[in-house]
Structures are given as C-alpha cells and as structure tokens.
C-alpha cells in the first residue's frame, strides 16, 4: 500500500472520529456516533497491517506477538466492559483511560530506545512530553479508580506540607525532562517516568468526592494530547488528528462538567496547593433524628398531592430503579403528581441517574433537571430522597468553607416533608454532615433502598 493511500485512510478514520464526537453530543444520535467511532478505530487498526514503514516490509515483524497481544487485550477489555455493573461504570472508564495513557507512555519509551542517538531534538521533546503526561494520566487514573471503587478513602488526602511535596515533584519532573533532552539516555528517561508516576498520584490524592469525575475527564484530555504527540514522533497523521480531537473536546467537556457542578476548574485542579488538612478526628455528636416505618412513609405519600423523587448513588447501589418506578406508577394511579428531580451529578458521574432510570423505562418527561424542579419544591408535599446526600445538602448554600460550598443543589428543604431513604447516618461521598437529616420535617427510613422501597410499595397498596 502506498503512503498516500495509507494517509488517506487515516484521514477517513479521523473524519469518523469527528462524526463520532458530534453524534455523541445529542441523545438521538449518540449510539450511532459511538458505532461510527468504533468503525473508524477498526479501520485505522486494520490498515496498519497492510502498510510497510520505511525500512520495513510486509508482513509486519513480530506479527505473532502483535496479534497475540491484541487478542489478550480484547479478551480483558470486552468482558470487563460487558459485565461491569451500572454503578461501577465510572471507575471502569477511569481505568480504561489510565491504561490508554500507560500505552502512550510505553510507545514513547520504545520509540526513544529505538531511535537512540538518531532522534531529533523535536522528537525527543515530544517523547518526553508523552512520557510525562502518559505516566501522570496512568497513575492518576488508577488513584481515581481506587477512590471510586472505595478501595481507598474518597475524601481529599491532604498531608502537612503536601503542597511543597507536590510542587517539588513537579520541579523535579521538569528538571529531569531537561536532563533527558540534553543528555539522551535510558536512565534519565526511566527516572522521568518514575517521577511522573509519582506526580500523578500526588496530583489526584488531594481531590475529593464530587470532583473526581472532573479529574477523570481532565486526565482523559491529557491522554488525548499524548496520543497527538506520539503521532508526531511516529509520523502518523491519524494519531495527531485523533489525539488532538480528544484533547480539545476533553478540555471543553471538563469545563462543562465543572460548570454543571458549580465548581471552579482552577479550584479543583489546584486544590492541592490551597487545601488545608481537615480536622476529621472530631467525634460526630449524637443528635436526635426522626426515623419512621415504611407505613409512616406510605401514609405520608397517600395524602400528598405532589411528590418529587430525588435519586442518588444509593439507588444505583441497591439496583432499586425498577422498584422506584413501581412506587411512582402506584402513586400516579392514585392521582398523585409525581416527578423525579435529577441533579446533574447525582450518583458518581454526570447523567448517571438518567441512564439508570432509563433502564427501568421511566418516562423521560418525568425526569426534571435541577433548574426545572427547584422552583416547584415549594408546592411539593413530599420529597423522597433515595440514597442521595451531597446533592441535597444545604451546606452547599449556607456553609462557606465546606468542600461542596457553591455547588448548586436540589432544594428539597423547601418541600413540606422530606423523606430520606438511607442505609445509615454515614455522610455522602464528599464526607460532609447533612443538617437536613436533623430537620424536624425530615423523616428517615433506614435500610437498603430496594428493600425499603418494596416495603413502602406494599404498605401503600394496602392503604
């Protein structure tokens, strides 16, 4: 195959990626968009096997190794993606992003070893960039995975002098980068990779709770840029186009996500440099709460005219989406006005709740976004909060200094009654106490969301 044809096919794949991102931006075309992207990626991969780079011939060297490695990757990736539960998708995306960054860093290292002293300065600079950013993306994504999977604390990890350690590591990374460019050698490059991995860990550790998805999106954009840089070193137009597209759209997406959550992007990213160690040692005081039985909740609902359901991560964990729909249908049959109040970041990721409720075939017109539902809480008799906490926490509005201050919330406290379905008094993902739980108009129903909802449904049927 000629170089021209090879590059034209690469361009075609690049166009597929543009159409994919375009399609993914609209609900109607999203699924088709993703498929177009997959077609582009498949074509791009197949065509490499039919083009001999200069100084090389077909079939590719090490073909057995290459095909074997692709098979292994597919055998790991496909079942992981197929079997993952809805609740765990965010961390899987983080993990996929991390391995992508790791792959880009490895490609850069191999190419560096291969080029040896024949590398031009520009090639070395791009290689160094890829190694740094790829390693940061890899180790950073692993930390976000551990946080989301709750294998480690979800709170910001801040240690005394942390900001100096982070700044020091960054300076060391840049210093070694200069060393690699000027001295060329394997050892400096490996030191650089190790320091970059460390920096990725330190960079993500201080990010807590609700900000984790924003960081995943940012690391995603980072990985895109490393792919673009690899494209330069490997002389591949396709990689430059694809990587740049992801880098640019990922940056915009990161900003959009931060806006949807009312977070400043700067504050999220550089929180590490400004955050102070939080005093978390204080024992939570025992305060009275009003807990009720499923019958109490059913009675409250039975005499309501308007009910707003606020789902959160607890609903996803309990897989209670079908039960909550059953409850909503029952209430609608009784002539009660029912709506779902969807916070943009309820759950672990933006859009998490929409996806979950769509699975239970909840009619789309019952799902109200935050701006639509907030003005209606004043006329709402009961707000049922199912496994959500941070997104309804008034501290975000009236407690400056708390980690979620400034995040727009669902103002359920304006409803006449609030019912919380919770597993325990444990605070939400961001680890902040919720004053609303102690409000006299709040009733708590403890237990697994699905079990509790099932009991409420049968109690309501009996009325």
């Amino acid at each position: 195959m000629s170089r021209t044809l090879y590059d034209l096919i690469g361009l075609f794949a690049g166009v597929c990626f543009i159409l994919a991102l375009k399609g993914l931006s609209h609900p109607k075309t999203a699924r088709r968009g993703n498929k177009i992207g997959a077609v582009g990626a498949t074509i791009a991969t197949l065509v490499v096997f039919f083009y001999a780079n200069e100084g090389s011939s077909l079939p590719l060297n090490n073909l057995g190794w290459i095909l074997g490695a692709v098979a292994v990757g597919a055998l790991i990736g496909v079942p992981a993606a197929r079997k993952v539960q809805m609740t765990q998708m965010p961390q899987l995306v983080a993990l996929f992003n991390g391995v992508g960054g790791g792959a880009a860093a490895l490609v850069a290292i191999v190419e560096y070893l291969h080029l040896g002293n024949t590398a031009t300065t520009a090639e070395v600079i791009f290689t160094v960039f890829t190694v740094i950013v790829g390693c940061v993306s890899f180790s950073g994504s692993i930390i976000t995975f551990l946080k989301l999977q709750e294998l480690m604390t979800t709170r910001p990890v801040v240690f005394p002098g942390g900001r100096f350690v982070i700044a020091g590591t960054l300076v060391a990374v840049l210093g070694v980068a200069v060393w690699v460019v000027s001295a060329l050698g394997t050892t400096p490059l490996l030191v650089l990779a190790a320091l970059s991995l460390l920096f990725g860990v330190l960079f993500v550790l201080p990010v807590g709770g609700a900000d984790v998805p924003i960081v995943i999106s940012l690391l995603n954009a980072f990985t895109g840029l490393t792919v673009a840089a690899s494209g330069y070193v490997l002389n591949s137009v396709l990689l430059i186009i694809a990587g740049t597209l992801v880098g640019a759209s990922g940056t915009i997406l990161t900003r959009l996500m931060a806006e949807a959550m009312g977070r400043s992007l700067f504050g999220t990213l550089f929180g590490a440099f400004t955050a102070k160690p939080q005093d978390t040692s204080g024992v939570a005081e025992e305060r009275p709460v009003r807990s009720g039985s499923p019958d109490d909740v059913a009675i409250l609902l039975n005499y309501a005219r308007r009910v707003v359901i606020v789902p959160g991560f607890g609903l996803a964990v309990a897989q209670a989406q079908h039960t909550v729909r059953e409850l909503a249908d029952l209430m609608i049959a009784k002539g009660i006005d029912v709506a779902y109040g969807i916070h943009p970041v309820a759950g672990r990721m933006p859009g998490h709740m929409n996806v979950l409720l769509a699975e239970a075939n909840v009619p789309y017109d019952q799902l109200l976004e935050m701006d639509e539902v907030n003005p209606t809480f004043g006329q709402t008799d009961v707000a049922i909060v199912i496994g959500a906490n941070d997104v309804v926490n008034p501290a975000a509005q009236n407690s400056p200094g708390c980690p979620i201050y400034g995040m727009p919330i669902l103002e359920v406290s304006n409803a006449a009654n609030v019912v919380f379905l919770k597993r325990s008094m444990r605070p939400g993902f961001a680890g902040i106490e919720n004053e609303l739980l102690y409000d006299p108009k709040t009733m708590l129903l403890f237990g697994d969301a699905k079990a509790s909802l099932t009991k409420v449904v049968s109690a309501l049927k009996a009325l």
Partner: protein
Amino acid sequence: MSAVAIISIFTLAVFVGFEVVSKVSSTLHTPLMSGANAIHGVILVGAIIVADHSSTNLELGLAVAAIVLATINMVGGFVVTDRMLEMFKGKK
C-alpha cells in the same frame, strides 16, 4: 511531514474538537467522555508500529505491553460506551 503542515493539522483539530462538543447536555457528559476515551485507544496503531520495528527484546516486550493496554482502552471503551447508550434507546 513539514512542521507547518503538522501545526496546521493540530490547530484545525483543536478547533473542531472545541466546536463539536460545545453544546452538550449534562445527561451525555459521561457517555461523551467514555466515547472520547475509546477514541484515544487508537494509540494501538502507534503500539503496533513500534512493535513492528522493535529490534531488542526489551523494546518488543514494552511494545507488546503497550498493545495489550491500548487494545483494552479501545475495545473496552467502545463496548462500555455502547452499553451506557443502550439505556437511552427509545428516548426522544
């Protein structure tokens, strides 16, 4: 390829990337991120190219690891995005 050509491609791709996702509802943030994530899995192409011209066992070993990781990223990424979007079907 000339430096100017590369800078041109890069600059145009930046603007296209900004433009295509500038208006997207928060409902689609997660699938869009996941889809973009799958797209950067095309680093697989780069991994295959370096595996082809690897001349030492070290290079080949690292390249093979890169291929495995990149394939997980690409194939897994598209499959998981499709699963997320499956939930949106039949929606207006």
